[in-house]
């Protein structure tokens, strides 16, 4: 992807105020995230965590300030941006007529993975979805649907991965596997931005936490963030 001339950080938010024209939710925030860094986004309900992620993705315009990815303003319409940024931020709507495996095929082939069949197998193994691979979405439980969404996010290569409360509705074993995988992804150079309420995820997979509190953002280390969640 073409990058800006002097991009020191992979992702940078400058004086960013988020919310809606009639209602500011949080800000101004300054955030710099380098390649391979893992930042958890934490805060009370309604503090603007999901709104921040949507603003970073360009789904919502900032009220003030700007967000840059690789030194360029975020642009969801750019093919390069879509290739480098993987997202799981909604509970997900599915194609009624596509099976679980076909949903993964859509993402894998859409991202040009040459060995897409093996990649699908790997994800089905990891998320223990083999038994439901040929089922349609309306035949899945809410936890299984969540696993499909996470599998679709992680099956593809990306420089930046954004997740919104990935721990929701997952059983403990899958959660632990997921946290280990996120940590490994980070070590291999992928940047992570994860909204979470789980202190374990912060401790195991992230190195810092952005605390959205009282309209401001403060960057804490992962342990301090986990302690804030446990208070």
């Amino acid at each position, binding site marked *: 992807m073409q990058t800006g001339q002097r991009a020191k950080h992979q992702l940078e938010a400058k004086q960013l105020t988020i919310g809606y024209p009639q209602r500011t939710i949080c800000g101004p925030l300054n955030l710099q995230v380098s390649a391979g860094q893992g930042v958890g986004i934490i805060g009370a309900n309604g503090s603007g965590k999901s709104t921040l992620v949507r603003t970073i993705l360009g789904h919502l315009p900032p009220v003030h300030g700007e967000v840059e990815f690789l030194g360029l303003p975020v642009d969801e319409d750019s093919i390069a941006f879509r290739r480098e940024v993987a997202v799981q931020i909604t509970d997900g709507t599915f194609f009624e007529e596509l099976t679980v495996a076909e949903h993964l095929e*859509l993402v894998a082939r859409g991202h040009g993975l040459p060995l897409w069949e093996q990649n699908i197998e790997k994800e089905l193994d990891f998320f223990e979805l083999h038994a439901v691979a040929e089922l349609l979405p309306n035949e899945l439980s809410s936890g299984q649907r969540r696993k499909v969404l996470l599998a679709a996010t992680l099956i593809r290569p990306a420089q930046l991965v954004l997740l919104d409360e990935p721990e929701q509705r997952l059983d403990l074993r899958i959660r632990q596997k997921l946290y280990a995988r996120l940590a490994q992804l980070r070590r291999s150079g992928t940047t992570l931005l994860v909204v979470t309420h789980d202190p374990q995820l912060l401790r195991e997979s992230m190195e810092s936490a952005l605390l959205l509190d009282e309209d401001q953002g403060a960057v804490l280390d992962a342990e301090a963030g986990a302690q804030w969640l446990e208070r």
Partner: protein
Amino acid sequence: MSDSDISAQASEFDPRQLILRAKRRRNFSERFDSFSDAYVWVLAAVVALAYLFSAIFGLIFALLGQGVAHRQMPAAVWNLQELSPVLLALGAIYLLRLLLNLGPVAVSAAKADWWLPLPLSSAALRGSALHNALLIGMIASSFIGVLWLIVLYGLAGAFDPLLAGCALVCFALAGILLASAGAVIQSFGQQRLVQRWIGRCMVVIAVVLVVFWGLLTAKNQCAQSVVESMAGSVLNLSTWICSAAILLSLVIASVWWAAQRNRHISSKSLRSSGEYQQRALGALMQADVLGGNAPSAAAIGRRRRWGRRIAASLPVVWRILVLRWIRGGYWQATGGYLLLVMALVTTVEQVANPLSAMVFYLSLGVLLTINVSGVIAPLLTQRQLTQHLGQPAAKLKQSAALFAVIYSAMALGLLTGGLGLLGVAELDNVWWWCAAVVVGSLGVAAASLGHAQRNERDWESLLGAATNDTTVALVLFSELATVVRAVASLAPLFLLALSPQADIAWPLWAISLLFTLPALRLLVGAFPGRMRR
């Protein structure tokens, strides 16, 4: 693997093939289910259209007061045929506004979540989205055209198939033109600006109408000839042929421009338009006019402030009802209806007749039933409210019934007073009128209580819950019973409107009162309780 390898692999992949493959895989039973669903909906639409045709025709018959003497209103300078071109302009403006609300170019939630984020060219996705938008515009405009032709047929009393065919072609072309214009506006991200202009356009149309009304009242010859030539032109075949030719050339240019601009529509706009379309479909399924026409943020703020002030000193149950009425915008339908009736009676020839008055009462009865049931429904159906408010269910029902009676009495009283002031209703027997309004309000309240208690969410769940033909018939019968109950209790008002001097026979009062019993029983239960306290 290099970026170029990945791009080459990705560029060969077409998500449409995968989706099409999955669709083809469906077995016969699934295909048949999908076909029969579509068949039932199309059939239902055709039947609904037939009923709509009858209703519009009946309404025009009543408004013109065929065979009944009407009162000469000094300000009634319009006739319905002269107003029909205004309906055309309003229809086009409202359709453009609707299309801009809907996007009009949009992708479904599944496509937005799974296809749109892929690093592929989105030309195929956008192409099909534009195609759908043009189709929506064409169908919506053709529907408006059919309604308009029914109105015209009702007014002119004659039907020229060639003229109707030409007119329908014009409507279909106009729909495509408006949808492609909407797509171009969407690509520039200027929907809000254009919607503001549309608002101003409505004001301009209203001002033009008022100016012409003033000129016609003053017997201005020039204005008279303009209005007559406008009204005459809608029945002229050459007008429609010329319009079709002009529209066709405009459609070719505008569709080409929309196709060029389509790739500039942002992903955000495609996604949010898809959400709007989903919401609009939900509102349509629930026959929820309020849901489909969301108020502006400023209007919501105003309603919140007013609601807080008015409901501040009320008991908690009444606060819920009054806040729902104000903030939910339920007052708009009744208020708008009463204003429209008064404007029609005052300014349009022949409308000031007893038959119209009866139709106005009938329509208000049905409107109020649906309107009031929307306000009171939570008190009757949400069991947890009794725990949250610490009040027994019977008490909540009584408050709902009292609210329904007061609200209905106010609306019926305003209509009666207005028609009386304009001289359309003769209010000599004022006590009879009062009694008829009270009985009518009780009947409307009883009907709305019944409608609210059934807690029907939408048409699909209503009919989907019915497992066989008998239960479908029962469901439809209970819907019909609601309307009949409201209308039957308005019988004394109908009689007074049609024949103010005639005595109303006591069996009619008795039958009307019979339909008010559910509301009466609740209210009679309420008052002794209060008196004891």
